[in-house]
């Protein structure tokens, strides 16, 4: 026992630099904050971002790297420094060596987590503020620390196993983590397979929801890894390890290791590329195999090279005949030059969008659009995006400009292919959302903030109305001038959204406050003009009613009778960080016995975990934009 304790102490001494570095990484703000800020103004949330409710935890990666570093300092260090032989010559069993090393590693990780718990607690309790100052709670802090420690111990076990093959051992784990990432996007319920989820806090009221099932699954896997690591470092597999050591030391071994390294890096690069491409919205559209069955033909006009499904040639003809005129109409309004020929793929069959554009390539779904006017409008909208890309040279701040990019494209589409009724419906939705939700420009101009509370699609109707107000105030050339101002050399970088718009509009010769005043005047005018249509839009409230077979049933109650042609929708997502393609939507059915009750049925496997967000919407007509309430949480 004494020998084991001595060995444990020796291991602890060896790990001390790692532990100190870990403490510095985790708790270094204790020294920095007093020098840089008035730390009595910071609340627990300000100090410890990892306590915020989220579905993605960035701190998990830090914990895993830390745990892996400490695990790699156990056996590989002894081998590299040549002290392993000395260790094995001591009168102590190999299993005790393993035990001492693991215990020392756990102690180091425990110390790092404990120091973080204490330093964050100390800093959080400096605030005298009556609301924010009371955020820190010992019970919750201990629960969060326990989850962090659990993640560390799980990662430590896997890293101990991986360290048998040195850095190569990490490759399968990196591959697995990347694969999990992909799986999470396509099969949301498998989110529990991701260890980083353990420290992505979710709350029920003020209480932390402990992810018991994922924790148990991850702990079981980690136990298995600990066992394999034991066999590898201590048991019969140790001989294999020694053979690998000898192989690594030889010239041939080094060659093999080098080739394996290059292969592994290539594999990782391919997977990363796969993740990247898989995450792009335009890659998920041929789910039904329709795309691959399409026989396409190509038509070239002066401004476009169009790919058309051969069987829909008749539907495409009017568009082909008009395409160059639409292009010219957009070009003139933007004051842009002609630019390169645009590639237009009309074979798109996505259920998620009407069209997509990337630089000079646009995709529009001919098959899904029977209305020739709407088809021309969508085509014009996407053409406008192609011009936007070129005029801004891709330098526009995406979070701050999304509403303008979509809104101005919509405005141009309406200007070139007008439809007064459709425009009125779009604007009714815009105005209803703006006034009922008491929105401000700061909501619209910050896409992350908008998505957190409201329907992300609001950028279209509200952006269109903003663009209309801008054009009304500063003339037809305003859209092009603003886009060019985004591209200008020497523009300040990393500005927050409001400051970005202040700067960009000034560079274009305009004034943000003037534009906003014009926008709000337009909102008031539209509100007055469409009072009846807006008042007719019901407010919806509801939640989960229960399960029926394999479906989850949601129910919404309307506060007034809906227009006869109204349709109802619910969108579901895992949380505010979910992307557009990770949001599921279904249409609801009005209860025949109670027209103010709407039922939605969602296939349970499509739900992203036990807790998710829902958004109820009502569209006044059979097609077009919908008024949405704000996102709310729900549980299965």
């Amino acid at each position, binding site marked *: 026992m004494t020998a084991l304790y001595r060995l444990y102490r020796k291991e602890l001494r060896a790990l001390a630099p790692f532990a100190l570095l870990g403490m510095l990484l985790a708790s270094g703000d204790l020294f920095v904050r007093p020098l840089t800020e008035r730390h009595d103004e910071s609340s627990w949330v300000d100090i410890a971002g990892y306590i915020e409710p989220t579905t993605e935890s960035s701190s998990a990666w830090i914990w895993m790297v830390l745990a892996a570093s400490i695990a790699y300092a156990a056996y590989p260090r002894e081998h590299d420094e040549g002290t392993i032989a000395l260790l094995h010559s001591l009168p102590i069993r190999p299993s005790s060596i393993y035990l001492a090393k693991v215990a020392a590693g756990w102690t180091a990780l425990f110390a790092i987590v404990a120091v973080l718990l204490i330093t964050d607690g100390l800093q959080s309790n400096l605030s005298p503020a009556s609301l*924010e100052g009371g955020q820190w709670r010992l019970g919750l802090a201990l629960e969060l620390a326990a989850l962090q420690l659990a993640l560390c111990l799980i990662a430590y076990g896997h890293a101990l196993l991986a360290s048998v093959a040195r850095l190569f051992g990490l490759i399968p784990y990196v591959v697995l983590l990347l694969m999990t990432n992909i799986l999470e996007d396509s099969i949301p319920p498998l989110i529990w397979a991701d260890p980083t989820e353990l420290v992505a806090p979710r*709350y029920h009221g003020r209480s932390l929801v402990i992810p018991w099932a994922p924790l148990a699954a991850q702990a079981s896997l980690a136990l298995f890894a600990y066992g394999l690591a034991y066999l590898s470092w201590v048991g019969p597999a140790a001989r294999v390890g020694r053979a690998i050591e000898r192989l690594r030391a030889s010239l041939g071994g080094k060659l093999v290791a080098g080739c394996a390294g290059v292969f592994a890096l290539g594999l990782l690069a391919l997977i990363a590329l796969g993740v990247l491409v898989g995450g792009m919205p335009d890659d998920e559209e041929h789910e039904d195999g329709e795309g691959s069955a399409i026989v396409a033909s190509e038509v070239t006009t002066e401004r476009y090279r169009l790919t058309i499904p051969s069987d829909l040639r008749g539907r495409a003809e009017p568009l082909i005949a008009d395409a160059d005129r639409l292009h010219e109409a957009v070009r003139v309004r933007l004051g842009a030059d002609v630019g390169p020929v645009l590639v237009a793929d009309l074979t798109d069959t996505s259920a998620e969008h009407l069209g997509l554009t990337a630089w000079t390539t646009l995709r529009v779904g001919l098959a899904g659009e029977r209305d020739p006017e709407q088809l021309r409008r969508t085509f014009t909208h996407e053409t406008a995006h192609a011009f936007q890309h070129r005029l801004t040279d891709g330098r526009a701040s995406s979070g701050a400009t999304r509403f303008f990019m979509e809104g101005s494209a919509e405005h141009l589409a309406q200007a070139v292919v007008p439809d007064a009724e459709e425009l009125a419906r779009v604007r009714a939705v815009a105005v209803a959302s703006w006034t009922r939700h008491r929105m401000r420009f700061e909501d619209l101009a910050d896409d992350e903030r908008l998505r957190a509370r409201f329907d992300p699609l609001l950028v279209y109707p509200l952006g269109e109305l903003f663009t209309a107000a801008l054009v009304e105030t500063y003339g037809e050339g305003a859209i092009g001038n603003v886009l060019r101002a985004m591209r200008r050399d020497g523009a300040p970088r990393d500005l927050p959204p409001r400051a970005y718009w202040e700067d960009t509009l000034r560079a274009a010769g305009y*004034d943000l406050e003037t534009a906003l*005043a014009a926008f709000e005047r337009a909102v008031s005018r539209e509100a007055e003009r469409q009072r009846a249509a807006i008042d007719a839009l019901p407010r919806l409230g*509801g939640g989960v009613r229960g399960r029926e077979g394999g479906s989850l049933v949601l129910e*919404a109650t309307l506060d007034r009778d809906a227009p006869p042609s109204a349709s109802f929708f619910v969108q579901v997502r895992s949380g505010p960080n979910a992307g557009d393609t990770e949001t599921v939507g279904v249409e609801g059915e009005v209860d025949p016995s109670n027209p103010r009750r709407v039922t939605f049925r969602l296939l349970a496997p499509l739900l992203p975990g036990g807790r998710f967000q829902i958004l109820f919407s009502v569209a006044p007509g059979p097609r077009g934009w919908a008024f949405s309430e704000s996102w*709310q949480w729900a549980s299965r």
Partner: protein
Amino acid sequence: MSAREKAIVGVVLIGAMIASEVFDTKKDKDPFTFDHEAVVRLDDPRVEVLYLEPRHRPRAEALGAVVQADLRGVREALALERVPAVHVALREAIDPRAVEPVELEENDGVLVRASFASEGFDRDALRAALIERVLEEVTDDRAAFEPYAWVRAGFAQAWVHAGEAMPAPALRALHVARAERPRFLALSRWQRTEERLGPAGAESLAYAAATAIEARAGRARWLAFARATIAREPPPAALAVIDLRMRPIAARLERETGLDPAALDAAMHEQLARWRASERARLLDRVPRVRASIAMEERSIVWRVTGDRPFEPGASCSLLHAAAGPFDRPLRPEALFREERVCAELAGEEALVGRHGPGERVLVAVELDSPTLGAPVRIASARLEVP
């Protein structure tokens, strides 16, 4: 790789990072200004009023002059070393009694939006809001920190209503005092008080405190207290924290004005009694003593407002609600959704169904907006959990 090689790589990397920062030609944004011809511009201190259309110019000029006079007066009274540029943008669409503050970048000054060309424009609310924002700017936001916040609000209200016997904040303070006796404790717990009473209700208490101190200790000592707390940029970083720990607000109050918290409580009580005795206080007879209840029943927020007499015409009662998250922090009024009703038409219980899901914490408040009070005052608020 040897230790020396590793060290060289490390030094080169750090050097490259420093060099990229040093040689980065990152350009700062130009200072904020209105880029429009319809702007009244005044200097020393700099005030800009955007009025958009020529017909609003006279009002903008009058407003600019008043704001500039305020800023000059405050600069002198508090011996401010600098006064930031102040910008007021006309925004006709918002409630003419409301002021919409806008967060600008550092050194851009202060910007608020207001409907100053509309009938019913509350100029005093705008003046007070501007003085508050200026004090925050001057103190690098320390004046907005909870221990100092009531002094900032009280100073702004007292400055704007100087010489008035019974202004609107006094009426609101009397209304608030019907339900609770104003105390120093409520002032020092500003975040909770503001959440419970709403911004206008909390400011009325701060006004009562400011006028009470002035009445009891004299204007000079009140201004000395304000100078000591909300008029200077605080010492840097941790020194400001130590400064507040060494000299808490109650100690500064006593040192500068001779009033300890208990004496301030008594002075506020006397001030309220003086107001209550005035002729104008009878206006409060139009405003019923109200009680509100809020509860979460399944997915619904159930709320009820009752008064001891009929509500005056035009009075509105609103339910405010927003997801509050697991951690308490102040929520700005504009972050709250609002369901407005005419108070007189409220019939028993009102229910808002299904806007928040199970497990969510929701800040719920009920406000009374009565013409006599001139601004909405909260009558109940709570953080509730949806079961």
